């Protein structure tokens, strides 16, 4: 057919694939070359070595930061899924007629500026910020004793990240619950299952792919996060991503070590993505 000859698959795919190869795959390959000292920031010492990698695995600061970030973003992801699930459940299964309108209300904040939503919390949480001044103004606390750990803390980072991601996570969970065949629930009830039993043995397992997808949607961006911690985290909220950014931007750049840190993060995220997408495909075909 003529269609196939003029708009051949290679013609169609050529440009987008080439774009991603040049501006996505090759740049990552260059990071890999830096991590093995094939490229270096200071040209006098280059040549393939594993020095940067060895240094990384023997450096308790980098690994400690990595685990701290994993822990923080695990907590955030679990909290966010736990908040989003009941809301998605309500929208999908309560029989409300306006579920798409309510869903849009829920998701709309996610579509506004990320930085500006972080800014809002900076204004709220500061020592003399909206929240503390409100407490003083209403006489709940005296002016000399503001709650001082609010801003520039690990708590602030996790609060803001949870705030930012809740609407987005509700989406995949909603989709998995909304597409659930409700006759299965009726069948469960007819066979004598209580609501709790029906939930545990039918609804929850069937919505698991949505939960896992939602979990990954939060975990992947937050584990490498550096913008939110640099704005509201202070020193105790400093994360792995901040370390990477600093290795590339401060007065003492170390691109080789920074490349190792970045590649390590990328590998962890890639493994997680592959494992979970296999899992979800297995769930879908089961």
């Amino acid at each position, binding site marked *: 057919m003529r*269609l196939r000859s003029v708009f051949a698959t290679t013609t169609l795919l050529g440009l987008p694939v080439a774009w991603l190869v040049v501006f996505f795959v090759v740049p990552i390959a*260059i990071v890999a070359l830096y991590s093995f000292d094939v*490229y270096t920031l200071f040209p006098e010492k280059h040549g393939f070595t594993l020095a940067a990698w060895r240094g990384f695995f023997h450096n308790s600061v980098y690994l400690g930061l990595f685990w701290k970030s994993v822990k923080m973003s695990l907590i955030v992801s679990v909290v966010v899924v736990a908040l989003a699930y009941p*809301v998605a459940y309500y929208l999908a299964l309560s029989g409300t007629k306006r579920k798409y309108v309510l869903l849009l209300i*829920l998701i709309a904040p996610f579509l506004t500026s990320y*930085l500006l939503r972080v800014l809002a919390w900076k204004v709220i949480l500061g020592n003399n910020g*909206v929240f503390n001044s409100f407490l003083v103004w209403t006489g709940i606390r005296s002016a000399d004793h503001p709650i001082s750990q609010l801003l520039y803390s690990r708590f602030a980072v996790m609060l803001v990240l949870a705030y930012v991601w809740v609407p987005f996570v509700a989406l995949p969970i909603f989709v998995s619950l909304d597409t659930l065949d409700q006759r299965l629930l009726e069948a469960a009830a007819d066979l004598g299952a209580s*609501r709790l039993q029906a939930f545990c043995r039918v609804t929850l397992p069937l919505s698991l792919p949505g939960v896992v997808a939602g979990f990954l949607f939060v975990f992947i961006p937050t584990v490498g996060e550096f913008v939110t911690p640099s704005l509201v985290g202070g020193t105790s909220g400093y994360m792995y991503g901040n370390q990477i950014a600093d290795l590339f931007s401060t007065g003492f750049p170390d691109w080789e070590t920074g490349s190792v840190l970045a590649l390590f*993060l990328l590998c962890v995220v890639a493994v997680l993505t592959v494992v979970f997408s296999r899992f979800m495909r297995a769930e879908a075909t089961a």
Partner: protein
Amino acid sequence: MDVALSGNGRRVLRIFFVLLVVFLYAPIAILLIFSFNNSPIPAFPLSGFTTEWYRQFASNPDLKGALWTSAIVAAISSAAAVFLGVLAAIALVRRRFAAKSAASALLLAPLVIPYIVFGISLLLFFHAAGIQRSLLTVVIGHTVITLPYTILVLVPRLTQIDVNLEEAAYDLGAGPFRTFGWIVLPLILPAVLSAFLIAFTTSFDEYAVASFVVGTRETFPIYLYSALRFPSRLPQVIAVAVVVMVVSLVVVVGAEIGRRIAERRLGTIPTS
């Protein structure tokens, strides 16, 4: 009996939903309130009404310049992303080829890369290639980030369209370009527009990748980030935050409603 929810369960979940929505909108409302507050420090008690901060922002050339720069970057990068996305989506939906799963994995991969990793990758790439950092490098980065979003919006729409319409156009003698322009494009236009919009808002707001590849001319998020370090600029930043948030909320919600209406009118959407 309703198996999914008891009467009490429904009430509890409704309250929970309302509380979560309050939590999501309260910070935005607080920004709105303090953008009109007559005090350079955003704190209680409120000290009076003023539009001073809006006037300051309206007469701040750096701020307006940054907004304009971001609009240009977002327009170019999302146009490019939508163009590439349409090509890729047609190939993925309408063609059968051996490496399809590998191709779609590559095309969607930018969705799951941490932005910090992609940012430094581009930085090292442009450094190695000897390309000066500028708005062009930001555009390139944003095109990569937003391409998968456009594909995710376009693919479902393309699968809804009956292939027979295209075949009929060929049988009646239309060439591939005519068929695309007269048959396919009008049918996917709502999806094309919403893909453009998603790409535009993503790029307009993007800080992490841009911070590594931006040149001397600042985009809006870059300007905003550096302005946050100066307390004296905070009130204007709050005012501009309110404007940007309200505009993006209106545009996004309006576009979603428009898309639904348009696709219903164009038909071929299963009315559920």
